[in-house]
């Protein structure tokens, strides 16, 4: 089976400016969302307690809400259903430091008249732990971006590194914006998802860039836009196939992976779409706008080749003993 066969070169860069305004709009909206609605930090970062309760029959959610709201210790706690009718989750900002039982015993006592139930999960995070995690998460992200810039500058050229990081920030911002939009609980798995997007976005960009690097050497036109158009067209088949397969894998995670992993897979779904889009419509035009000169690059490559050849010649001469 073949879908992309003998594809004519598509003029991606011709519309780059129009598409860029879409990207800028999305990023702006995301930033506004992040500042106005804000991220809904889950207990991993904000501290607090989550208690997941499963009833044998349908959960009497109204009754539970009533009881919980009357308990001064659970002031401001929310009760929501979780996955199915029989399961509920109680969220509170309180965090009991007692080793002996804390929330589990309290909840068992508090809900004892609401029917038969099982406490399936209690997650508690003290506020200090959350702060440390957030710092570490940010630190990890910064360090990996720095590492990647260094590696890409070394393997490609600094403009490639900058362009890929611009695309990266674009993707992560939009993914976080969507987290703010849908008020998804930001917990450790979400952090993992954001970091995966980071990896995926780079992966995708690097593969497109690799083709562009290839194209700079082989394509006749000295215009960067032509080189990009032709290279991107050539990777289009791979880009589509990979994004689709990844998208489907993540979609199955989202649909069948269970409630706990829902936020994680949702973030990834957004990331896969945005990551694929940004490799073509963000990273590549930025590379063009950074005034990457094909001719200069070729001249440098030629000079490098020449130097190497001369070195070889010298070595050959040296080995023959003429020097």
């Amino acid at each position, binding site marked *: 089976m073949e879908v992309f066969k003998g594809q004519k070169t598509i003029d991606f860069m011709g519309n780059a400016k129009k598409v860029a305004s879409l990207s800028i709009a999305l990023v702006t909206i995301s930033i506004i969302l992040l500042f106005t609605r804000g991220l809904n930090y889950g207990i991993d970062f904000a501290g607090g307690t989550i208690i997941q309760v499963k009833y044998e029959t349908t959960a009497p959610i109204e009754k539970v809400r009533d009881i919980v709201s009357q308990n001064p210790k659970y002031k401001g706690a929310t009760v929501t259903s979780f996955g199915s009718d029989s399961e509920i989750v109680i969220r509170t900002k309180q965090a009991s430091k007692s080793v002996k039982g804390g929330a589990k015993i309290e909840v068992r006592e508090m809900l004892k008249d609401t029917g038969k139930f099982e406490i399936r999960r209690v997650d508690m995070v003290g506020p200090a*732990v959350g702060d440390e995690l957030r710092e570490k998460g940010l630190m990890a992200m910064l360090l990996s971006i720095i590492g990647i810039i260094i590696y890409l500058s070394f393997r490609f050229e600094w403009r490639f590194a900058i362009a890929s990081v611009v695309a990266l920030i674009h993707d992560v911002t939009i993914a976080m914006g969507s987290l703010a939009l849908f008020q998804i609980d930001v917990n450790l798995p979400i952090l993992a998802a954001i970091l995966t997007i980071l990896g995926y976005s780079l992966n995708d960009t690097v593969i497109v860039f690799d083709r562009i690097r290839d194209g700079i050497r082989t394509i006749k036109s000295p215009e960067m836009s032509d080189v990009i158009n032709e290279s991107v067209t050539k990777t289009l088949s791979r880009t589509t196939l990979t994004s689709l397969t990844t998208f489907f894998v993540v979609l199955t995670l989202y649909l069948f992976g269970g409630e706990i992993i829902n936020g994680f897979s949702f973030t990834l779904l957004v990331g896969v779409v945005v990551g694929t889009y940004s490799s073509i419509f963000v990273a590549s035009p930025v590379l063009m706008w950074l005034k990457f000169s094909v001719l200069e690059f070729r001249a440098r490559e030629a000079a490098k080749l020449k130097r190497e050849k001369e070195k070889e010649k010298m070595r050959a001469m040296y080995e023959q003993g003429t020097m």
Partner: protein
Amino acid sequence: MNTLNYRVVIFAFAFLFGVVFSIPSLTQCDENTTKGGGSSCGKKITLGLDLQGGLHMLLSVKSDVAVSSKVKSMGTSIKYNLDKEEIIFDALKIDDNIITFEVLDKDDLPKVVKILSEEFKEVAVKQNGMNFSLELTDELIASTKQNAINQAVDTIRNRLNMFGLAEPTVAKQGKDKILVEVPGIKTEADENRIRKLIAKSAHLQMMAVDEARAARVDMMSDGEARKYGDVILRDVADNRTKYLLYAIPILDGSMLTDAKVGYGKNNNQPQINFTLNGQGAKIFGDFTAKSVGKRMAVVLDNQVYTAPNIVQRIGGGHVQITGAFTPQEAHDIAIALRSGALLAPVQVESQRSIGPSLGEDNINASIIALVIGFLSVVVFMVLYYGMAGVISNVALVANLFLILAVMSLFQATLTLPGMAGIVLTVGMSVDANVIINERIRELLHEGNSITKSIEQGYNNAFTAIWDANITTLIAAVVLFAYGTGPIKGFSLTISIGILASMLTAILGTHGIYQWLLPKIDKKRLGFWFGIKTDKEVK
């Protein structure tokens, strides 16, 4: 042409390695059921708490308490030493971690100075006439705190091991935190027992009742008691009964050598029999000889269990705690006493407690997702690429086995995010093969020979896959270094997956192509590569 090339040989070995070492994990063979130890079983992946249920706690130690109890036990020791030398002193008090006392007889001063300089070298001693004050140095405070943390790790580990659950983890994390993971807890009652066992200070003290003022205890405030160097403690069974005790104990649990559950002769009630070491037995014997007719309280975690009258000197160092406890409680208290007291209480910084049924749900959900995702990718690859897709799938399967095998050898823990990491690696491994297959197709369309298309295709694809994988690997390694818990598991599986996929998807498939090369029919490119081309392939 010799078709059995080095690539396919390495790949075959890797595949075999993967299968062999992932077997223990896949069957989850249990060391307890296979008699003759774990050697027959091999190293395996442990399931994370989110997958098998259990209790995860990050504890912190209130190490300030360890410092103040260190001061207190120094007080005990001063009292013991001064009494031994028959020095008369008064007003032995502890306030704000400073011990003060007054010597009454001037002639005793040289003896006191000698005792203090010999027995309390690490302490800053100030003398003002007949008054002495002792204070811990900063180094001693720091080492006491550190010691309290290390001791808490050992003590909690001992207790959990004695409790008899499979594979509890107790480890120091960072400077002052303790990570406790107890998998496989079946019921809430068990969980509560384990929590109590961890939390129990098991701080045993023998304290003398201040008989001179005991009658007034009900009207006395805590502050007033402190003025006399006393402390008010309550009875464990009856909260209203109060005892006025000398704050500095006669001896404490550090002099205990053994604790066992026994049953009373008369009432068959569970009791705890414990044995003191030589020094403890001597102090205890001396004290009881001196205090006939007075009361002595057995205090555990600041609650009075019994306070019998001393009828005669008690030698041999055998003491009992009686009280109203169930056999289960007695059993747990005995464990706690045997494993030693916590020098300082612990508190929870964060915890995760996952019921076994939820763990099972999590496993089922992620396995379903994994299988559906995997199957749809496998089927798609075959439909789209023909035999080339089959070859990619072989690499994919090998990749999965390799990940499992390496994780087993590391005895890594598989968590829910770890599962997600595997799913993503499947995606990346497929991506490598998509890139390679696309490149080969391109070259075939240009009319190159099959051999050239394959070799050139791998060459062209290599830099892209290499650079993409390395950048992701950089991110994963940084994450592993900086992440905690679930993030670590996630980045570990990704890192292993990337390395494995370079071996299987790049080297392995290349080897298979070279091996199969003589069989590839240039007239059946649709079957082999899933393409139709109008150009004649050489």
